[in-house]
């Protein structure tokens, strides 16, 4: 029983963390076309923000709920800074944003190594996350449940934001044709900044979740970036529901692979799975058809 149910539950939690990491990318990459390789470092910034909040509010029962919005804002502000200083000059060269942000990511990692203890810092989990939930005889860690709930809340908030506010339309319009959006009266600068803020902020929230699961150190962001991009790509760029499904699928697949093979091989197999999938459906799970030349 455990062999079937445990990977499913663990994998769902892994998928949820991946989703949190990918959610911001689905905005900045999926909607804006910016390939932000420093997204992982924004996640790291969120985790360090959680640590700093705990330095102020010692009781972790309280500090983590406080850390979530704080991490959102702090990481969001870093994103905003990146947008204003660099990205805003590059909207017409999406592939080049990839290279520029690789540079940003290097700098942020090294800065974190300088500023914080090199071994990393502890982020204490709140007491109310101690314990397990018994599901079909399997003791499922509460912390995993929390990751899933957090992801669900973020997805719902983001979806509502995109769907029920005019903002979603403006983002999509700006992505599609910047000049046309601008001459239609949309302040593309505002759209860009807000989108980037929100996307980076989501990375910060993911960072808090990650800080409860692994180490909080200068290297932590690096392990999320490529899986997160794969998830966004596999889901279909700009497709929220695709991203959700892909994250979950990758998480569960990783978990089953890890259960059947080894941790290292699971990583390889999951990557190959996504790569093969993208061969079959090069535009991801969900696609938008347009009447392009293609």
């Amino acid at each position, binding site marked *: 029983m455990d062999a079937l149910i445990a990977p499913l539950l663990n994998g769902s939690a892994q998928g949820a963390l991946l989703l949190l990491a990918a959610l911001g990318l689905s905005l900045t990459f999926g909607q804006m076309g910016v390939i932000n390789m420093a997204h992982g470092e924004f996640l790291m910034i969120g985790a360090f923000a959680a640590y700093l909040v705990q330095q102020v509010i010692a009781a972790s029962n309280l500090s983590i709920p406080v850390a979530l919005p704080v991490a959102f804002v702090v990481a969001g502000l870093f994103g905003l800074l990146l947008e204003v200083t660099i990205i805003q000059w590059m909207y017409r060269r999406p592939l080049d944003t990839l290279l520029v942000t690789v540079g940003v990511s290097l700098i942020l990692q090294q800065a974190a190594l300088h500023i914080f203890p090199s071994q990393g810092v502890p982020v204490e989990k709140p007491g109310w996350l101690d314990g397990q939930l018994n599901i079909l005889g399997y003791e499922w860690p509460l912390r995993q449940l929390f990751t899933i709930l957090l992801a669900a809340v973020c997805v719902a908030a983001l979806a509502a934001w995109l769907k029920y506010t005019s903002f979603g339309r403006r983002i999509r319009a700006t992505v599609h044709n910047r000049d046309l959006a601008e001459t239609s009266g949309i302040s593309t600068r505002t759209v860009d900044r807000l989108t980037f803020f929100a996307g980076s902020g989501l990375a910060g929230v993911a960072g808090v979740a990650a800080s409860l699961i692994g180490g909080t150190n200068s290297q932590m962001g690096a392990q999320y970036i490529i899986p997160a991009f794969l998830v966004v790509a596999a889901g279909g760029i700009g497709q929220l529901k695709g991203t959700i499904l892909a994250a979950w699928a990758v998480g569960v697949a990783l978990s089953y692979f890890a259960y059947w093979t080894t941790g290292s091989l699971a990583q390889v197999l999951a990557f190959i799975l996504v790569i093969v999938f993208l061969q079959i459906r090069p535009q991801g799970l969900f696609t*938008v058809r*347009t009447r392009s030349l293609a």
Partner: protein
Amino acid sequence: MLELTDIEAGYGRTRVLHGVTVPSGKVVAVLGHNGAGKTTLLRLAIGLIKPSRGRVLFDGEDITSLAPNQRVARGMAYVPQGQQAFGQLTTLENLQLVADGRRGGRALIDAQMARFPALEQFATRKAGLLSGGQRQQLAIARALITEPKLLILDEPTEGIQPTIVAEIEQTIMQLAAEDINVLLVEQHIGFALEAADRYVVLASGHVSHTGEGGKAATSTVRAAMAI
């Protein structure tokens, strides 16, 4: 309403416009051969490119350094050349985009849908899937929803079926009558001259001729274009 004075502009190191001045007027037509710089001039008027010399005045205000969206907020609207629409958004979303935040947004949309029935029919279709002419209608509707003081039109009838061309031409005439100013680029000199109270002929980025609308003989303009 809109005055462009001694404009010099271009792309990168290539200069396209050389000291172009466009006077204010109700309906101003800009005429010229392909590549004369008409589109460049309109892009400059709406703020998509910045002049290296010269000034742009709107309603007496110097807007030379304003971004396009700020100009739109001040009452300018722009229909670019080439049937442009937000392909990933539905027809309706294309219109909502500009109607958002305006009073009576829905009514404004309905009015335009009534004007262009194809838009009503394909309201939920992605604009990228519309035919060229349908997209052009959408572009004009999008501009009109903002209830502009000045409408900038770059070859608005290009690729439009004759019945609708007629309608668009009527619309332009009517807008002028409704106290909306128009800056128009048209290849159909006859119509342009009839609609315009002033016109400017561009040739290789220079103003080769200007005049009062209506009166000018088509042949004079043709001659000026060829310079």
